[in-house]
Structure formats: C-alpha cells, structure tokens
C-alpha cells in the first residue's frame, strides 16, 4: 500500500516537473499537400525561436478544417478553401471568424507507374476525366495513346488511386475535373471527399504516393514534391491554351498570375485551368486557417510573427521543395490582413 502511494506521488511530481519552464506548444493540423514545406518551416522557425514549438500533424485538409472548427487545434491548414457553410459553422460556434492565409503555390500532378514506360506521358483533360470516371480502363486506350504517339503503352488495366481521407489535394483535382468535364461535374462534383467512381484509397499524399509506387499500372494525383522526392514519373497536362505543360516553378507561378491581381479579400480563390500559355492547369494556393480571435496572447503573437516570417524569409526555402513563391501582390495584401488577428 505504502509503495503504491509513493509511486503515485513520484509520478505526479514527474508530471509536475515536466510542466515547468516549457516551450510554448502551438498545435496545428491539416493538409498533406504542403506538409514537406511546413515541416521544414516549423523546424527552421523552432531553430530561430527555441521557446516556440509548432506541432503540425499532416492529417488531410478535411481534418484540418474540422479540428480547427472544433477548437482542438490552434490553427488549421487546407488546400481546399472553406466553403460558406463551413465558414458560417465556424462563426456560429466561436462567435468570430476564421481567416485564410495563402502560404505557397503548389501543383497536383498525375503520377503513374506503368510497366515499360519510362518517359513523361501527356494527358489531355478528356483522358484524365475518362480515367477517373472509370470509362477509360486500359493504358493503351486511344484517348491516352493519341497524345503519346511515340510511347508504347501496355494493354493493361489502369489502377486508379485516390485519397481515402478528406483532402485539399482532392479538392484541387476535382475542382479541375469539374471545370473541364461536365459529366464529372454532374456525376461527382468537387470537394475534399467525393464519391469516387473507381479506384483505391490511400491515406494522405504520403499514402497515395506509397500506393502508386507499389502498384504496377497505377495512376493517382499527388502534390509535385511527393512525386519528385520519391522518384516517380508524373505527366504533363494540356492547359486551356492547348499546350501540354509540366508542373514546375514557372508554370505554377504563371497559373497564379491572373488571380493574384484580383485576389479577393478573404484570399479564397481557385486557379485551376487558368489562362496563360504556360500556365499549369492543376495548380493551387494552399492556406493556413487562423482564427480571428486568439485568446492566448503568447500563442497569438507567436502565430502572427510566424506568418510574417513565413511570407517573407520563409519563402526563400520553398523553391528547393518545388513549391512556387507567393506573388508579391498577394504577400502585400496578406501583410495587411495579419492585423485582423486579435
């Protein structure tokens, strides 16, 4: 009995000691799309400010929106902007609003693992819509082969891989498909979680990449850096100016050019299928979701300072991870918006 009591006291003391003098922990959760750059940023920022820890969990945009609305995390992250219903739900629950802050520009690319194919494939919008609708089932289908005349495509079944979790990357992809395919728009629609006609589900950008890597004849959509880091092939996509464009810094930046000049005040904008000769058609901003009212002064200041750092110094690290920098006009607008956080 006595030993038990001593043990309990010891444990409580241990718990208490670890409470003292701790770094401030700020919790966030959300998109896997920007996870590589966020984890790098938070690591760098922690190096500069050892008393601050930003704990970011890459669980998908859907979970990011949900958890920041529930208030279980301090900030969220998403590549599918919150819709009006979700904004209202947040407002109703907290009595104040939530702000979107663009952080980087990224691209969703069609990645594939096709037997015998070692070159870059070209995808037309019709091909992509057909594949994901389940109507184009073999790799050597004419709608794919016609755009890839020099390549030998096998007569194998296409294995479609999509996200099993609520995903901003899904939002970007389905947003694009809804724009270029009326059938997709009416049958499936756009969102972070849709009723996929075909395919396997992988968890997070990480899971989809892993699945594609291990499954022959698979195709899926992931953020550019995941394809690059894991050495899997990704294709070009035909844009609205009829050019086949590969996702890279230039083409992603070009996609944002038009929208940046007319950026709405709440920063929620879609840049898929953007006009421009060299614009990559499946690009997107990705946002941090920051509550307008933050009770804890320490957290509020930490978040505001991080945002300032992120849009200026932080942008210096994004290109190494294949994300494009924020356009100047957007940064200028964001710097003003930071003051909205009370």
């Amino acid at each position, binding site marked *: *009995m006595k030993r038990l009591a001593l043990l*309990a006291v010891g*444990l409580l003391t241990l*718990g208490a000691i*670890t*409470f003292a003098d*701790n*770094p401030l*922990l700020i*919790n966030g*959760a959300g998109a896997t799309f920007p*996870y*590589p750059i966020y*984890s*790098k940023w*938070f*690591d760098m920022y922690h190096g500069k400010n050892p008393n601050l*820890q930003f*704990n*970011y*969990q*890459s669980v998908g945009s859907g979970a990011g929106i949900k958890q920041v609305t*529930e*208030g*279980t*995390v301090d900030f969220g992250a998403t590549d599918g902007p919150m819709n009006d219903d979700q904004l209202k739900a947040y407002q109703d629950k907290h009595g104040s609003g939530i702000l979107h802050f663009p952080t980087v520009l990224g691209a969703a690319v069609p990645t594939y693992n096709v037997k015998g194919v070692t070159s870059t494939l070209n995808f037309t919008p019709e091909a992509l819509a057909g594949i994901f609708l389940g109507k184009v089932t073999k790799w050597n289908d004419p709608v794919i082969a016609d755009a890839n005349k020099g390549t030998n495509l096998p007569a194998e079944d296409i294995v479609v891989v999509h996200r099993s979790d609520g995903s901003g990357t899904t939002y970007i992809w389905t947003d694009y498909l809804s724009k270029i395919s009326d059938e997709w728009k009416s049958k499936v629609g756009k969102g972070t979680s849709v009723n996929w006609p075909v395919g396997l589900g*992988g*968890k*997070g950008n*990480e*899971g989809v*990449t*892993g699945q594609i*890597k291990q499954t022959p004849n698979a195709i899926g959509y992931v953020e550019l*850096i*995941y394809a690059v*880091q*894991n050495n899997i092939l990704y294709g070009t996509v035909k844009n609205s100016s009829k050019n086949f464009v590969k996702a890279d810094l230039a083409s992603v930046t070009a996609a944002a050019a038009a929208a940046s000049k007319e950026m709405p005040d709440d920063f929620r904008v879609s840049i898929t299928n953007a006009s421009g000769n060299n614009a990559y058609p499946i690009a997107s901003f990705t946002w941090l979701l920051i509550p307008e009212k933050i009770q804890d002064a320490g957290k509020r200041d930490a978040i505001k300072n991080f945002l300032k750092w992120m849009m200026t110094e932080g942008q210096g690290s994004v290109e190494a*991870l294949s994300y494009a920098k924020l356009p100047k006009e957007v940064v200028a607008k964001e710097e003003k918006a930071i003051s909205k956080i009370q």
Partner: protein
Amino acid sequence: MGRRLRWRRFVSNFMLAMTGVCAGVSVLVLFLILGYLLFNGGTSINWDFFTKLPKPVGETGGGMSNAIVGSGKILLLASLFGVPIGFLGGIYLAEFSGKGTASVVRYAADLLNGVPSIVIGIFAYSLVVLPFKHFSALAGAFALGMMMIPITLRSTEEFLKSVPRMLREGAMALGASKWKTIATVIVPAAYRGILTAILLALARVAGETAPLLFTAFGNRYESHGFSQPTATLPVMIYTYAVSPYEDWHRQAWAAGLVLLGLILIINILARTILSRGIAVPRS
C-alpha cells in the same frame, strides 16, 4: 476386411499428421513474424532511434524518442486509471457483493471488453478531447485505461475467489475483520494471478493504435505534462508504414520490433509469474 482396416489406419495416420502440420504452421507464423521484424528492424535500430526526434518530412535520419516516451507516459497513466477500478471492483465482486449486483457488474465488464477499440476512441474523443478542446495524453490514457478494466476486474475476482477457504477461515478465527482479512491475507495469496492479469492487460493495450488516433493525436516534439498531443509508437508505425519514404519504412520496422519485443517480454513475464503457482502468504 484387412484392406478396409489398412485404409482406415492410413486415413487415421494421415489426418493426425495433418493436424500436426496445422499446429506446426500456426506456431511457425509466430516465428516468421519475429524473424521478419528482427531482420528488417534489427538493422535499423541504432542509438539515434531511441534518442532523436523525427526529422522534417523527406529528410533521412532522426528517431522516435518522443514516441517512446509518449507511449510510456500514456501506458503509465492508463494503468493508474484502469487498474484501481478493475482491482477494487474485483474485490467488491469477490468479497462483498450479492448475486444480483455481481451479475450486473460482470455483464457491464464483459460488454466493455467486447467494444471494438475504434469505438472506444470515439467515446474518449467526445468525453475528453472535445470538452477540453485539445488532444492529449490524458485522453489517450482514458481510452486505454478503459480497455484495461475488464481484464483486471474479472481476473481479480477469479483469483480472489480461488484462494483456499482455509486461509480465510483461519484469519477470521483469529478475530480479523473482513477488510483486514482481505488486505493482509487474501490479496497477498492471490497477488501472482492479479499481477499477471495486470501485466496482460497492459500488454494488450500497449499495441493499440485505433483509440489513440483521435485522442493522443500526434506530436512532432516531446510532449510535456499530460495535456498535450503526444506521439506514440503504434501511431508512428502506422504513419510511417503507409508513407512512401524508404527511411520511414526502415524506422517503422525498428519501431515494430521495439513494440513487439516489449509486448512479448511482458507476456512471457506474466505467464512465468503465474506458472510458479499460487504463493503461500508470506509471514
């Protein structure tokens, strides 16, 4: 006649040999699992694994020090929550309760035992995470502690009941009151069995992942105290295993080896304690 008998004998020997094969295969699986983990994980276990924090995504190196500590913290707290309830409840069932109350409590414990672990996670999320507005080690411990209760309760009851009447009656004859008898004679007599049960309950929840997904959540850093999101070994294994990074796969194997090693050691320990028999109370 002879032919038929020889056929029947052949069938008999054949089928019995087949059952031996079945048993052999089942046991072989265990060794295959261990072997696989040892092979893939053994080479990845190094000092870094135990002492370093995870690195940013895509970079190699780093370790799982925060997950190891996190799992330890949550298991400790879960035991503090689940064991007293199971133990003291078991005492009630064995020593004090009437038939009616006993069946109600046992029924509730059996119900709780059968709840799928993911559903326990849902309950802990609604009860601990939402009201307090953050993910925490506490929530994780609450979920795991709940899962420890039924095993501890039923085992305590059984082992207390199996203490020979002689010991009980002897103590009463010497004038000891009931609770004194329980505390100084009966519980010590049954302690091996009860300890075994606690260890087995611990081993069972040590590997649980599902309930931790929405309670402890995850943490890139070490968590301080009990009210912060916490990294844990099982969740790290899951996250790393489904990722595309080779380095993370390597670490997942290592973590799997450490986790399974821990669980098997606890199990073997528990069963060895039990097999030594019921101890005679020390004077």
